[in-house]
């Protein structure tokens, strides 16, 4: 039986795994879990992953969550080209160093800008910048600066001459704020050059296909508000439950 992949391309970690599967021609069955529809809360999905998060893979009886560990597992099992997750200890450590830092160093900051600029204005019904959006953009700018100064520096890719899991995981996060109309790499020639390089290495067609949903976030939300307004209410409750 082919590998089963549970995901939603609106989610950054889902995109990195999807790109890796497709780019390496790993056969898989795509089981879409539509986050805007709340499908991650279904009883069936909860049995698979009690944490109700995507992506998840199911390889026979082996179930695995967490995109970073899924990517490493796939690289190992399918013996993908070395540059993705190098066998050389120090080069691998460099890739790991980025993959570990980004959980708290870039992912939350990019997600927050997407949330505050892309989702909250629509869901709350008040267009225009939401509270905290400016600070969120400033924090993301600082994260991007750290990415540049510490991890990419003036190399073509994070691990050196070739693309690796580090670039893949970075790029999907840095695309997310575009769903809220914010380009985190705007104004940086070296970083936009890196983005182009990564797009080319992945393949433009695959890259654009995978990023279609997030770039069309506003249209998706519009469509939901027309066809299933109760879902917007549910999203509102979820987003604002934390309180002020």
């Amino acid at each position, binding site marked *: 039986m082919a590998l089963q992949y549970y995901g939603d391309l609106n989610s950054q970690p889902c995109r990195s795994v999807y790109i890796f599967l497709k780019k390496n021609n790993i056969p898989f069955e795509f089981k879409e879990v539509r986050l805007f529809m709340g499908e991650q809360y279904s009883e069936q999905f909860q049995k698979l992953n*009690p944490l109700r998060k995507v992506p998840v893979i199911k390889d026979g009886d082996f179930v695995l*969550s967490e995109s970073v*560990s899924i990517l490493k*597992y796939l690289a190992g099992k399918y013996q993908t080209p070395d540059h993705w997750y190098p066998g050389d200890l120090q080069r691998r450590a460099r890739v790991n160093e980025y993959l570990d*830092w980004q*959980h708290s160093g870039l992912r939350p900051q990019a997600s927050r800008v997407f949330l505050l600029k892309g989702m909250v204005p629509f869901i709350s019904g008040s267009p225009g910048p939401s509270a905290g959006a400016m600070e969120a953009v400033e924090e993301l700018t600082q994260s991007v600066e750290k990415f540049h100064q510490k991890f990419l520096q003036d190399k073509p890719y994070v691990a050196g001459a070739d693309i690796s899991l580090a670039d893949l995981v970075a790029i999907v996060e840095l695309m997310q704020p575009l769903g809220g109309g914010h380009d985190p790499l705007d104004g940086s020639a070296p970083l936009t050059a890196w983005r182009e390089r990564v797009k080319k290495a992945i393949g433009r067609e695959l890259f654009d296909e995978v990023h279609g949903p997030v770039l069309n976030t506003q249209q998706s939300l519009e469509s939901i508000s027309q066809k299933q307004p109760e879902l917007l209410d549910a999203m509102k409750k979820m987003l604002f439950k934390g309180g002020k």
Partner: protein
Amino acid sequence: MASRLPLRVYYDLLSQPCRAVLIFLKCTGIPHVEKPVALRKGEQTSAEFTKLNPMQKVPVIVDNGFVLTESVAILKYLATKYDVPQFWYPADLHKRAKVDEYMAWQHANVRFHAAKVFILEVLMPHMSGQPVNKDKLDKALAELSITLDKLECMYLKNQPFLCGEEITLGDILAICELMQPLGANRDILKDRPKLVAWKDRVKTFVGKPFDEVHSFVFNLRDKAKL
């Protein structure tokens, strides 16, 4: 090789990820030189340390010229490079993936929420001189409790250790994070017998290094008791 320098580890015992790296080094007997960096004195902002790590964070290791940050990457590097027992970071693909799964999840979950409680209860009042913000602390404790529920049902389940039958890098990372709130004399595990049993299992296995490395946290706790 005569020119080979011993591994250097830059750390502060106040920092949970530093403690995990030190516990691992001490448990496995990997020869190393300890270079303390006093965070409360701002030593991580010195020109010398900034040259080593522009992010001004600990832990950092230097292995014969190779500089590496990020405790999870460091632990994986050490477990792979040195001749340590297999169970820490198993070679078997499935078992290793389960350890990677925990180490990825914990950044935004166990680490984030346990650290927040400590920051609100100990660090911020200490640095600002202001009393603890009770509302924020209550909220952080509630979120930590949810995270501990997830830890029990998703990872520990009915296993002896977080990632399976044997101790792994995941367990030492987790235990160092969960010890942090103790610095305010707060035992976050006391009403959770499964996690208490797990903690005792890990402590017993680690042995002496556990208490050595947590001496700073115990001192903070004793001060808080007064």
